[in-house]
């Protein structure tokens, strides 16, 4: 019967506001004729209305009115939100500008140190300019035992984490030649040692950079009486697909022309290399007979065209008995497959009646593509799958387009750079050259970035998992008067756990005597609902209880019940009790103080006696006061 009344009360509330349909109104009026408690309820609502009206309206003083009027007519509120936007943009631009300036200063310093003027002249130093297009990535570890010179490693790490332009400067400084003018020997020395230590191999094997080693050797051809140039390049890189270090080579042999010389030979073989695989920075003319310079390149490009350019993503919806544990399991699965949890959120959906309709979680995982199927199988096992789909998209066309765009841009860039090679080398000129080249660099960066993005999407599949628990079939409400909030709350928490349920939301406020209550919402499995409610009732004195069930035929004593029950609790300490406790606490404190004072003055007996006498009197007086206050408050609440 209580169950029906719960619903009717709500109708009565709407009835008082005249917001019922004719049919509903008829029903209510009929009911009111016979039901006393509902009639009283209606009366109470009416009384409530009049009580509420006892908080009268605030009148507008003429001053206030004038103030408001001038405010809105004077457009006081005009700039508020716009200002926020402007401030944001301003801050954005400001910080962007600041960052750019800082970068320029840092790079500029490097230029100055390296003697930028000299660089343009010196062939071996041209490497500096060329690397402006790749932002070097940090080398975190170089797993080659040869390369165990700490200094070199440290230098390399430091350098690569800045713009690679600094690379040559650093090596030069390291090798001890800082003029920047005739650093052929010095530069080669540095590189020789680097090579000797297998630095380039280590770098490639680390997977952090592609290493291109090239050279051009002059060969005198007896037959033609000409000097031929043999240019060859080898690129070492880390193949992500196979997980091994690999290399590709290209070479040229031919008479290119004396004036063109070694540089052209090398460039030609490079171009062949480029056609074979991936774009790369222009190589440097090496010192004669020596191995060429190392070109370090950002590794975000995949090594070869051997990998599939397919992006695969999946969506799964699973109904699980316990969302929180399923969530944990899913996160574990993604980790075990070498992936990670990118995003997760929890939500709770309530129905009108206040029954928690759904607890749900949404997770976005990234799983390495070769483990995708496995991961999906395991996730599906977590519960009953309510939805699933798998999508693949082939991006090889886009990828290849990007690649060729990149290469084309590079060709133009190289040509331009060559054009400026022999010009004058004032700092101004140098900067102007830089500015001309920059747009091309930027375009290449753009292509590279997009390819990196695709690479990421290809190599890691995105899986969206929707977990949810079925709706609560049963809801109960309890209002309980208690003695001690903390204790009661803890008991409830313990109870929830014991019944394999959990607290959905809850909190309490115990700061003052007048607000001493807690509201807790918890969920327990249906088959434990009856027990739980019985146990909860024992916590204190039950002042209200009602039950709402979506299924009237639901038998809580039934055996095979699945689903959960939702219980909301209102716990409170009656005001007089709280006050009493508060005051008792105060009185107790004061007593302790008195006592401490008394003990302190135990030196002199007579004062001690006097003091203890006073203390006693004070204590008695306080006790009387406390009792009086408690009585008074008790009366007030009656």
């Amino acid at each position, binding site marked *: 019967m209580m169950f029906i009344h719960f619903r009717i009360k709500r109708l009565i509330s709407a009835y008082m506001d005249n917001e019922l349909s004719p049919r509903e109104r008829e029903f209510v009026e009929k009911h009111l004729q016979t039901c006393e408690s509902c009639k009283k309820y209606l009366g109470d609502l009416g009384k409530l209305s009049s009580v509420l009206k006892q908080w009268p*309206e605030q009148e*507008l003083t003429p001053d206030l009115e004038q103030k408001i009027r001038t405010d809105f007519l004077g457009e006081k509120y005009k700039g508020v939100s716009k200002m926020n936007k402007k401030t944001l943009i301003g801050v954005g631009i400001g910080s962007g500008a600041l960052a750019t300036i800082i970068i320029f200063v840092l790079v500029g310093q490097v230029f100055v140190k390296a003697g930028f003027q000299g660089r343009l002249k010196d062939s071996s130093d041209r490497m500096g300019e060329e690397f402006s297009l790749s932002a070097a990535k940090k080398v975190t570890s170089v797993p080659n035992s040869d390369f165990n010179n700490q200094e070199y490693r440290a230098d390399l790490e430091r350098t690569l984490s800045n713009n690679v332009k600094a690379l040559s400067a650093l090596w030069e400084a390291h090798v001890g030649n800082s003029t920047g003018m005739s650093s052929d020997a010095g530069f080669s020395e540095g590189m020789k040692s680097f090579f000797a230590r297998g630095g380039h191999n280590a770098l490639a094997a680390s997977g952090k950079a592609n290493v291109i080693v090239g050279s051009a050797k002059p060969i005198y051809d007896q037959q033609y009486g000409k000097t031929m140039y043999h240019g060859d390049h080898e690129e070492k890189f880390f193949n992500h697909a196979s997980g091994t270090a690999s290399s590709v080579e290209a070479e040229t042999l031919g008479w290119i022309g004396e004036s063109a010389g070694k540089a052209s030979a090398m460039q030609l073989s490079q171009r062949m290399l480029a056609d074979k695989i991936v774009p790369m920075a222009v190589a440097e003319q090496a010192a004669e007979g020596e191995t060429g310079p190392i070109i370090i390149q950002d590794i975000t490009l995949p090594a070869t065209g051997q990998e599939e350019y397919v992006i695969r993503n999946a969506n799964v919806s699973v109904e699980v008995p316990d969302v929180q544990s399923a969530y944990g399991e899913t996160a574990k699965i993604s980790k075990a497959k070498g992936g990670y949890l990118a995003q997760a959120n929890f939500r709770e959906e309530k129905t009108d009646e206040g029954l928690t309709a759904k607890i749900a979680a949404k997770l976005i995982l990234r799983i390495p593509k070769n483990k995708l199927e496995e991961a999906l199988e395991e996730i599906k096992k977590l519960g009953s799958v309510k939805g699933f789909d798998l999508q693949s998209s082939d991006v090889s066309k886009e990828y290849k387009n990007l690649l060729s765009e990149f290469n084309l841009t590079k060709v133009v860039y190289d040509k331009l750079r060559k054009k400026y090679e022999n010009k004058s080398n004032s700092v101004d000129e140098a900067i102007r050259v830089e500015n001309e080249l920059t747009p091309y660099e930027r375009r290449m960066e753009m292509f590279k970035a997009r390819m990196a993005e695709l690479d990421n999407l290809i190599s890691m599949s995105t899986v969206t998992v929707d977990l949810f628990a079925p709706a609560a079939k049963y809801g109960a409400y309890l209002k309980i008067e208690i003695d001690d909030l903390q204790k009661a709350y803890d008991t409830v928490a313990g109870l929830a756990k014991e019944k394999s349920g959990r607290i959905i939301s809850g909190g309490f406020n115990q700061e003052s005597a007048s607000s001493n209550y807690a509201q807790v919402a918890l969920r327990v499995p249906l088959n434990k609902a009856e027990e739980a409610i019985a146990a909860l009732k024992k916590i204190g004195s039950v002042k209200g209880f009602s039950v709402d069930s979506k299924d009237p035929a639901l038998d809580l004593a039934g055996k095979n019940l699945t689903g959960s029950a939702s219980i909301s609790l209102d716990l409170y300490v009656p005001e007089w009790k709280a006050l009493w406790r508060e005051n008792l606490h105060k009185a107790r404190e004061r007593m302790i103080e008195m006592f401490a004072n008394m003990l302190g003055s135990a030196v002199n007996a007579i004062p001690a006696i006097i003091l203890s006498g006073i203390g006693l009197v004070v204590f008695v007086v306080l006790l009387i006061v406390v009792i009086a206050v408690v009585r008074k408050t008790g009366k007030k609440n009656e």
Partner: protein
Amino acid sequence: MEERNRENSNNMTKPDEELMTDYRMGNIDALEELFQRYKKRLLNYALRLLGNLADAEDVVGEAFYAVTAQKDKYEVRAKFSTWLYTIAHNSCVDRIRKRRKIVFLWFKKEAEDSEYEELEIPDTKYSPDAEAQDNERAAIVKKAIEKLPYEYREAVILREYQQLNYEEIAGILNCSLAKVKVLIFRGREKLRKELMLVMGELR
């Protein structure tokens, strides 16, 4: 001058929507009339919802400013009062959100007290004794209302104090009619429990 006066006196009988149209066409007196009609309602709505006069003032100002700024966006089909209340409601919600970040009203007694200080219980026409008692009662009611969770509080205020019907309230709060019913019902339930003592004294 005479014509203007005549128009002004006509303004008092025109419906809100028509006044808005007039205002859109450039008649500032129409806006003034709307201001007069709604100033007290809006102020009290915001005041009860937010608990202090300064904020309520600002909300009213902002709402009317929004009317001037968005007069072209207002659809004449929509009810003016609903539109105006919705603007005020949004302002209040913003304020409450900001507040929550700084002071959690429930759990700081100091904050509660300071809130009370700002509101002046207005004078009534009753005798001094009754006045004192009324002030006390008003304070109790105010406290009970403030204790309500925000959603319930707003629904109850709109129904009991602003006397709006459920449909309008649903429009302002941007929710379903069913939800409005539940909010009001639950708000009343909570208030009933809080004010049981006070209600008991009423005969």
